[in-house]
């Protein structure tokens, strides 16, 4: 394990930023957001969750995928260059780290989404262990250890120091690159980090959603769950605003639209939401005519369809952003509980 004094963090960030793009959580107008680090930015070390997840670092909210020019009745396709590869994302919580792997299963499956792949390839993920979770956290339900998250390198803060543990070869190479800035952790540092983990786990065990379980959900539950009358009641309050899908780190549905700038036609993709009526609207109508069907689709996808196609992995990471942000307090926790997923 390596360590660095918190007061020296900006020195580390400056060194990284000299080589590659570095993104980390910073405070911005009373909220925390992921931002490209520049001189003067401070890591929001005490903040738990960013408003939006960092998924847009790999899957941007808006992205130009091709350009066209029209000359008479001819079209010329102007290729869009692939994005730069190899960013460093620092201060990622365990939930968001798992969300990258959920997205990988979609975008890196054949045929590979080369835009996503270019961004994701060679990226280094440095995670931050959680010590002060919020009441809406339930990542443990999805097998995440927030006190010792995965990633290429994992960090813990103990008093005035940050500790770095290598988790992958990529992480090892990364730390080696900045070896001068770190010092080697001592034996009792290991004990102090273990103690922080222990204390954090005590808090996690007392969280209101600590007993939430995915029991009863999974890839083989379509028939059992799909026609359940409970969907009607659960979805009644849903406004169909799509906020849950935009703050969700694993939601990956997108739209493709053309925009004529006058000089050229830009084709871009942007985040979309299965909660919207237009999402499946065709010339012949839609198979999801009311909010009930759209609401059911979102949760069935996360808790049944996705696991069926991805070896049982759920497409929810328990970050709780939808719990915090839904204007009518209807969310995945209510769905899981309504079907009996609460040990209490």
């Amino acid at each position, binding site marked *: 394990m390596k360590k660095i004094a918190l007061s020296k963090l900006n020195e580390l960030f400056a060194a990284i930023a000299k080589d590659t793009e570095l993104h980390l959580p910073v405070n911005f107008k009373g909220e925390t957001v992921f931002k490209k680090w520049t001189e003067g930015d401070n890591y929001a070390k005490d903040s738990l969750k960013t408003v939006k997840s960092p998924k847009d670092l790999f899957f941007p909210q808006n992205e130009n995928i091709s350009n*066209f020019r029209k000359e008479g009745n*001819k*079209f010329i396709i102007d290729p869009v260059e*692939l994005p730069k590869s190899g960013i460093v994302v620092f201060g990622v919580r365990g939930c968001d780290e798992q969300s990258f792997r959920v997205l990988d299963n979609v*975008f890196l499956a054949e045929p590979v*989404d080369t835009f996503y792949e270019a961004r994701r390839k060679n990226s280094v993920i440095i995670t931050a262990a959680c010590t002060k979770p919020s009441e809406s956290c339930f990542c443990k339900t999805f097998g995440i250890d927030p006190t010792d998250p995965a990633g290429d390198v994992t960090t813990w803060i103990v008093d005035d120091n940050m500790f770095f543990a290598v988790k992958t070869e990529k992480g090892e190479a990364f730390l080696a690159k900045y070896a001068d800035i770190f010092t080697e952790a001592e034996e009792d540092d290991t004990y102090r980090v273990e103690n922080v983990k222990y204390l954090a786990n005590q808090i996690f065990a007392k969280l209101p959603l600590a007993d939430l379980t995915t029991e009863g959900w999974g890839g083989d539950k379509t028939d059992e769950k799909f026609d359940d009358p409970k969907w009607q009641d659960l979805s009644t309050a849903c406004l169909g605003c799509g906020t849950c899908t935009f703050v969700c780190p694993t939601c990956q*549905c997108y739209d493709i639209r053309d925009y004529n700038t006058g000089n050229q036609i830009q084709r871009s*993709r942007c985040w*979309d939401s299965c909660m919207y009526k237009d999402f499946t609207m065709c010339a012949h109508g839609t198979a999801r005519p009311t909010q009930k069907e759209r609401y059911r689709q979102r949760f069935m*996808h996360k808790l049944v369809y996705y696991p069926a196609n991805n070896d049982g992995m759920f497409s929810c990471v328990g970050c709780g952003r939808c719990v915090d942000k839904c204007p009518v307090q209807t969310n995945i926790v209510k769905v899981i509980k309504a079907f009996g997923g609460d040990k209490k």
Partner: protein
Amino acid sequence: MSEALVPHVAIVTEIRTETPDVKTFRLEAKDGGKLFEHMPGQCAMLSIPGIGEGMFSITSSPTQGDFKECSIKRCGLLTEALHALEVGDEITIRGPLGKPFPVDTEFKGKNLLFIAGGIGVAPLHSVINYCRAHREDYGTIDILYGSRSMDDLVDFKEMKEEWEPEDGLNLYLTIDRPQEGWEGHVDFVPTYLKELAFAPDKVAIICGPPIMIKFVLANLLEMGFEKTQVYTTLELKMKCGIGKCGRCNIGTKYVCKDGPVFRFDEIDELPNEY
């Protein structure tokens, strides 16, 4: 460049007006050669940049030549713009997308019964011409096709002049209501199907409006067909065509990449959301 999402330019080399609202477009690569290889049942994303992109079944069979043809019904913004195209105009295309009909496996050596309604004949047209080109690989070919009126029968000329005279191929046409100048059968497709009383020793391939498919399937089952003998194609809103944008997701399947061809026993496993 993301090969999967970035299209190629295609040139419109022929346009045939099939019915008052259906045109068939022949598309070819700009510099000659094939746009791409495809098999019957597969689809392509056609686009007029600036208007939009949409998924269409490829109506031509790969045995017909290097070109691709799509029969397109005018019913929205993009199809309206496609119908305004003239020969020599360019559009963009990407494909092939989706899984084809199992023409070289499950269909091989079988008697085939095609049942189509309206523009539903589009995806079947490719299969029929593929099977006609490999005639020795298949048994009898029965084609039951119906439309609202005789003016709405797509591919009418080709069916009457090229298909019907062939040995071992039976063509049954019908229209919904009597019409002056029509001496053929008048009835809805499902009713005519019952009347024709085909023996269930065939593979049935059906495509048409959802209501027709529903009654045709019910009648086929009554006639002794098993769901494992009946194929159709599903159609949902699509954007990416490669199983990622989420739009055509039904249960664990994405119609764009796992379909659009499904056997009815496979459809039974999907939630009723298509």
